[in-house]
């Protein structure tokens, strides 16, 4: 249920990481609007299918535009939005199943194009809406409803994948620190090019990783998440690789590369080539 639509009946489970991500995204949008003086109506949230995608219906305050499409296709849908209307600020919200499994084929092309959209990927390592099947980021050996004898595929390492495939802005974070996360999302939106903020967003029902991420002294669990040191150079691919070779979940900006976006290249072509009208095109077929 959302404040603006009492009839909307979708709810996240209590404690779901997506609450924190939503708060962070709301703040990031609010600040981005203020920072650039862009009207709220110029923002488009393209949502994936899964628990996280429902965020587009749950945001409070001034509403951005939303596009809640089909499973796995946030990247090509947002590609259409952004290349059709470069003036629109386009943000993707999707889960690990949507973005990395069914939608995985679109990450490489989006990176090669360096299309100027920001992805907020909520990784809970499980398919929640369909009630607990394994996802690409589920650890090997873990028993889920679809891996009754333990997962027999390797766990995917999304950050390394993004780096290898040429994503120009990669950040990693988790949902329990919404204020910090908001800063990161805002920074990613300011990046000219394809940016991914990969967020650990635990599923309290099927894969509760809060203790693992933050640590629990009473249970003797050391936290997996660690702040990226201040001396890390995000412009260095080698430093980013070294960083990702360390165990655990880094928090902060992993890699950032400034290079022309697809729109820059399209504009370049447009400058040196005439915009031919239908009349001119028709004339080229004269007998």
């Amino acid at each position, binding site marked *: 249920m959302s404040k603006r639509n009492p009839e909307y*009946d979708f709810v996240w489970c209590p404690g779901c990481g997506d609450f924190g991500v939503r708060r962070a995204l709301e703040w990031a949008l609010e600040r981005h609007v203020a920072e650039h003086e862009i009207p709220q109506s110029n923002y488009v949230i393209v949502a994936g299918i899964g628990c996280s995608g429902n965020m587009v219906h749950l945001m409070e305050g001034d509403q951005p535009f*939303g*596009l809640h*499409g089909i499973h796995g296709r946030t990247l090509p849908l947002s590609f259409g939005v952004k290349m059709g209307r470069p003036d629109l600020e386009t943000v993707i919200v999707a889960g690990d199943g949507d973005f990395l499994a069914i939608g995985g084929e679109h990450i490489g092309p989006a990176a090669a194009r360096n299309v100027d959209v920001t992805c907020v990927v909520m990784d809970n390592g499980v398919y929640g809406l369909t009630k607990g099947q394994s996802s690409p980021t589920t650890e090997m050996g873990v028993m889920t409803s679809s891996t009754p004898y333990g997962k027999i595929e390797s766990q995917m390492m999304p950050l390394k994948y993004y780096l290898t495939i040429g994503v120009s802005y990669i950040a990693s974070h988790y949902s329990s620190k919404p204020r910090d996360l908001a800063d990161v999302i805002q920074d990613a939106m300011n990046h000219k090019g394809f940016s991914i903020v990969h967020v650990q967003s635990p599923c309290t029902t099927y894969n509760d990783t809060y203790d693992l991420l933050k640590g629990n002294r009473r249970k003797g669990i050391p936290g997996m998440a660690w702040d990226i040191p201040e001396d890390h150079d995000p412009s260095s691919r080698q430093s980013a690789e070294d960083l990702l070779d360390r165990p655990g979940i880094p928090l902060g900006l992993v890699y950032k590369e400034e290079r022309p976006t697809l729109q820059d290249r399209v504009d370049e072509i447009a400058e040196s080539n005439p915009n031919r009208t239908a009349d001119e095109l028709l004339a080229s077929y004269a007998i």
Partner: protein
Amino acid sequence: MTDNHSQDFVIRFAGEGGQGLVTSADAMARAAANAGYYVSTFSTFPSQIMGGPASSQVRISTTPVLSSGDSVDVLVSLDEYAYNNHQEDLSENGVAIYNSGEFQLPGGGQYFGIDADELAKSTGNTRAANMVTIGAVANLIGFSLEEIDAFITQRFTRGRPGDEEIIESNKKAIRLGADVAEKSGFSVGRLASPIPPDYEQIMITGNSALALGAVTAGVNFYVGYPISPATTILVWMEQNLVGPGRFAHQVSSEIEAISAIVGAGYAGKKSMTATAGPGLSLMGEGIGLAWMAELPCVVVDVQRGGPSTGLPTKSEQSDLMACFNPGHGDMSIPILAPGSVEECFDAGALAVNWAERYQGPVIVMSEFGQAEKGENIRKPDLADVEVEDRSVYQGSNGYARYQSWNGDGLSPMPIPGGPGAYVANGSEHDEIGDTTHLPRHHIRLTERRFKKLGLLNDAHYEIENEGAIAMIMSWGSSKGPAREAYERLREQGVDVGWLYSMALNPLPDEMKDALERANLVIVPELNYMGQWSAILRQHGYRAESVTQYTGLPFKPATLVDRIGDRVEELQKEKGLVLA
């Protein structure tokens, strides 16, 4: 040489892909079009870059060309395989020209040899071999060499230093070829004088006409994935859809293509993609999203043979069921199927208008046989094309985008950047686009989506000789051969009528009425299942198909025979003639 003046000749160039077959047919077509004849080309080739059996033909006529014809009057065979493969298509008086530099045929047949390469060498231009052959063809059909000269001068006047030399060598090549033909003693007749049209013409292919029509109606966003026979639309758009506010791009799959045009349609663009059967299969879910979320976009399916990878470079009309039901769930996608190169332009433009008007996806179905067919058609008057833009919401925020709709003027669509922020949702939704499972919303919005089809009732249709014992109703590019067959059957006094609708879904009201009244509808179509007649029967109309699934278009004579036989049978059943 006889005095036999003919209105109509078919000339076929057969050999291997990459030998300039298409170039030869195209040159012949352009020379004839320049001279005031009506022309239509047709090519068939295997799915490989070079080599493999291929052929390209041109039909030249004093009246508008409706089909590729029944037989071949002049066959040019560049190799023995091509001769063996195509000679059975020669008409009774037909003559074959074979490449004697490549193979020999025994004496006594209706053929003669030319070593075009050797003769071209003697002109000093080894690339003029095609022109040697064209010269021979021209002699056989009594086509003026001066008209070919004019074409050569036009083609090779490019402002380069060597132009004059190239023009002269090509003209020489033409005459060398004509001499060989003259000495052979063969002739297939004399092409009657042209009756030039009293209107301006253009020479264009089906795919280019379709792209031009769409751009005329304002398409400004195109993405596609290479696939035969739709690739030329992608290439056309990449080349021409350039400049501020325009975008054309090759994407990574048909799934990316449909998703991107849905996203662009949502963002206010007039968006389009083109594909063939395999790509259409991948687009099913995305087309459903556009239907569900009510987002305008155009999908062109240039059909080939199917299923699976099927026959990538052959002609078939077997995607109809897939276009009617491209994805899961209750939906009914508007379909336009142009029946000629000229109609490709109209359908391209109307599809964009329809998408804007009813705020949803529209499918255009073309075919291989029409995609690369070059014809000289009436030059479209762009000022005549009525460009429709979607109704855009201009009010204040808090707008119910998916509100109830009484059937008049569709609720305006908010566009990002403007007022009325909402969620365009592929899940069932309420008035503002939030996901819902409540029955009342699903009932209301399902009905709303279907009711919108009522806005689309203005596509071209033809009804003639109602009351005949059988009505011929073809669709898509089978329209041409069916029309030729219809006219011949009428001349023979056979009791047939004519129905044609460029829109297959929804059918114009007048067409539904005519179908209702028809005693029997006979549907010539290029598929095994008889897909269009099956759909017509599903709607309660009396329909049956005349099918062909060879990968080639219909010959009019085939249809004359099969429809003629069926009509006779009907008359016997009704006791109208003696059994």
